[in-house]
């Protein structure tokens, strides 16, 4: 206890001596003794810190300054920060504001929907110049996106016409039942019937993307096109091919020349009753896909390429494309035998010859004795047959006498597109082919080989290729005929290798050929295919070939 108290005293003494040292060190005259410690307690010394009058003068002046300065100046950093914060918050709140709009001839119903109050319809005019025109009895709800990013319209029923002014970063969308229309800057009209589930959109300007409903993917609609969808069907109409007629409702907007200002362009008909365009035949979605298969070629080129009867048939069906049309790549269209007449025409022109028989089990006889198979490239997905029958030599089972295949082919991957040096992955993603061996033992045709042959097929309009492979050649070396037409009689000299060359090697005869194949080549677009070999004809005698030509 005594030791503890002694230690405490020692520590306190130490602090006291340090305090004396601090007092000495901070005295004005530095009264340190020769021994380095104070001779007297500093607090007992007369102070040298007598105040000077100038110090008061300074304080007095500062007191005056501070009394003059208001709180604003004294606390200017805080004030500045506050002002900046307020400006930022205000700016953010202002920017977060939604698009303003005014109503003309519209009113809100009890359930929050907007509806027209007059028989002429109503108008919603947005501050960015966009306008929405409501037909009579139309009902919609607006969802205004913050930061003026656009508007989402929930169309409950009826018809609305829109003129949307394009601005960067904005998004306009229309929801009609299960359908969705994404809008950029454009003019169009949308009709939705809640009761019947019928959806229709007619484009005047620009383009929109339509999705939902029975459509498996999104469909781009351009100016002049319209789309009608029900619970089970989708139809796309190209109004550009329709002769102008006195229009009413939506049709009016379709056939007029677009005015300069979109906001003023909407001129709804007095009745605002919707009428189906009577003159233009509705073009099925599958037909639009058929157009897409043709690619960029114009209608004139297509007509020139096709035989006259086929071209006239297509023209009668209004299938000749007027322009490149977007289509939904995932929607497998209905099978349309658009070249059937062409094949029939070819059949008529041919002389009598040996017809190859397709057995019920897929076994060929009468000219060819090999089995029929299907092979595919890497980008191809088959739905029929379920598996590739090339490897296991399982014969392709015919469907009602037709050797068919279905599926999708991915688009080619290319570099230097649009240039002469374009390179694509042709060797990997080459498409799909239905082929048949000339002999059951898969050897060369031999002495029984015909001098000419023809393959009849039906399928989607496309550029098909007829290939021949010589026994002993590598698999990738094929002799082929580009743009092979159904029923076209071909001689060995018409097959060339490589295929794309016009001056390549030709087949001397069919004796060395071990199989033929009809190829659906891949293209620049993802595409769904379905085609069938309907018949094979061989011409064993040169006289028959001469007669056929």
């Amino acid at each position, binding site marked *: 206890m005594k030791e503890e108290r002694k230690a405490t005293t020692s520590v306190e003494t130490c*602090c006291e001596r*340090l305090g004396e040292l601090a007092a000495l*060190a901070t005295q004005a005259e530095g009264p340190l003794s020769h*021994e380095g410690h104070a001779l007297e307690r*500093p607090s007992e010394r007369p102070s040298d810190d007598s105040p*000077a009058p*100038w*110090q008061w003068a300074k304080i007095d002046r500062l*007191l005056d300054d501070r009394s003059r300065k208001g709180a604003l100046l004294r606390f200017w950093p805080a004030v500045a920060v506050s002002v900046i914060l307020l400006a930022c918050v205000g700016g953010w709140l202002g920017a977060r504001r939604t698009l303003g709009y005014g109503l003309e001839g519209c009113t809100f119903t009890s359930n929050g929907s907007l509806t027209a109050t007059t028989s002429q319809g109503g108008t919603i005019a947005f501050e960015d110049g966009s306008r929405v025109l409501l037909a009579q009895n139309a009902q919609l709800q607006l969802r205004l996106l913050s930061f003026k990013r656009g508007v989402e319209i929930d169309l409950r029923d009826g018809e609305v016409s829109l003129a949307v002014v394009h601005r960067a970063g904005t998004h306009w969308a229309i929801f009609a039942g299960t359908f969705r229309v994404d809008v950029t800057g454009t003019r169009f009209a949308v009709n939705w019937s809640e009761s019947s589930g019928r959806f229709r959109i007619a484009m005047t300007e620009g383009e929109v993307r339509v999705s939902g409903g029975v459509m498996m993917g999104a469909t781009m609609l351009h100016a002049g096109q319209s789309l009608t969808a029900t619970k089970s069907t989708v139809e796309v109409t190209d109004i550009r091919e329709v002769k102008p007629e006195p229009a009413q409702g939506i049709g009016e907007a379709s056939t007029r020349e677009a005015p300069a200002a979109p906001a003023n362009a909407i001129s709804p008909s007095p009745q605002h009753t919707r009428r189906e365009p009577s003159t233009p035949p509705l073009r099925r979605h599958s037909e639009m896909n058929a157009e897409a298969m043709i690619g960029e070629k114009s209608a004139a080129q297509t007509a020139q390429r096709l035989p006259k009867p086929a071209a006239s048939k297509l023209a009668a069906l209004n299938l000749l494309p007027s322009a490149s049309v977007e289509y939904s790549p995932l929607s497998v269209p209905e099978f349309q035998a658009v070249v059937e007449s062409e094949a029939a025409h070819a059949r008529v022109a041919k002389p009598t010859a040996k017809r190859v028989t397709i057995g019920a089990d897929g076994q060929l006889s009468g000219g060819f004795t090999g089995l029929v198979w299907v092979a595919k490239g890497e980008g191809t997905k088959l739905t029929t047959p379920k598996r590739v029958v090339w490897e296991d030599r399982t014969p392709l089972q015919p469907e009602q006498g037709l050797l068919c295949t279905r599926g999708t082919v991915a688009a080619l991957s290319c570099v230097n597109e649009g240039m002469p040096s374009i390179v694509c992955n042709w060797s990997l993603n080459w498409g799909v082919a239905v082929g048949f061996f000339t002999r059951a033992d898969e050897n060369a045709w031999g002495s029984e080989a015909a001098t000419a042959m023809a393959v009849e097929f039906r399928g989607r309009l496309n550029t098909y290729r007829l290939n021949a492979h010589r026994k002993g050649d590598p698999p990738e070396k094929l002799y082929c005929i580009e743009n092979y037409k159904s029923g076209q009689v071909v001689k060995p000299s018409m097959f060339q290798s490589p295929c794309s060359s016009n001056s390549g090697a030709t087949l001397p005869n069919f004796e060395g050929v071990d199989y033929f194949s009809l190829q659906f080549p891949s293209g620049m677009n993802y595409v769904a295919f379905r085609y069938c070999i309907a018949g094979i004809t061989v011409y064993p005698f040169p006289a028959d070939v001469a007669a056929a030509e």
Partner: protein
Amino acid sequence: MAPVHLAMAASIDLPTAVQAESDSSDTDLVCAACEGDRRACYAIWSKYAALVQRLVRRFLGPGPDYQDVCQEVFLRIFKRLHQVRDPAALHGFVVSVTLGVSRNEARRRRIRAIVGLVPDEPFSDMGTSAGQGEAREAARALYGMLDTLSAEDRSLFVTRFVEKMEIAEVAEAHAMSLSTAKRRLARLMSRVNARVQASPVLMEYMGSIGQGGSS
């Protein structure tokens, strides 16, 4: 600098009753100053300027810029004078404000030292004799040690061991209870002792003090 100061002093139109005001009681001075009487402010300044200067110097250590701190102390005193509940306790209020401003200044200096804004050599104006040189080194070490303490501990050290205040006065100046002051002081002493033990200069100085004291 002196002629300038004198010239400034001469230019000030001090009231003739300044001395009389200085002799007035703290209660009268506080009341008058609260009513805006600048003469009362001057009287308060003249009465407590020495105390404030001494306290600031002892708190912050030797250095040239203590005058700015003193000015700030008085500006704050005059600004908060109306908050004094007992005008007779002006002395304690002045001490309290002085310690508060000094603590703020110590914290500010610590931050400056951290960011590299080191102040001028504070001990250059002390004596140059051999003995004073030893004391200067010890004083430098002492204030270096004080710099490692918190501003609160430093304030306690200055009031208790440099200003020689009673523990009750220390507690009042720091607005804490007597028991808290005792506890904090005990803890402070142990910390200081530990730091002194770790400082050869201070240990040598304490040894020389002990020898001198014993002799």
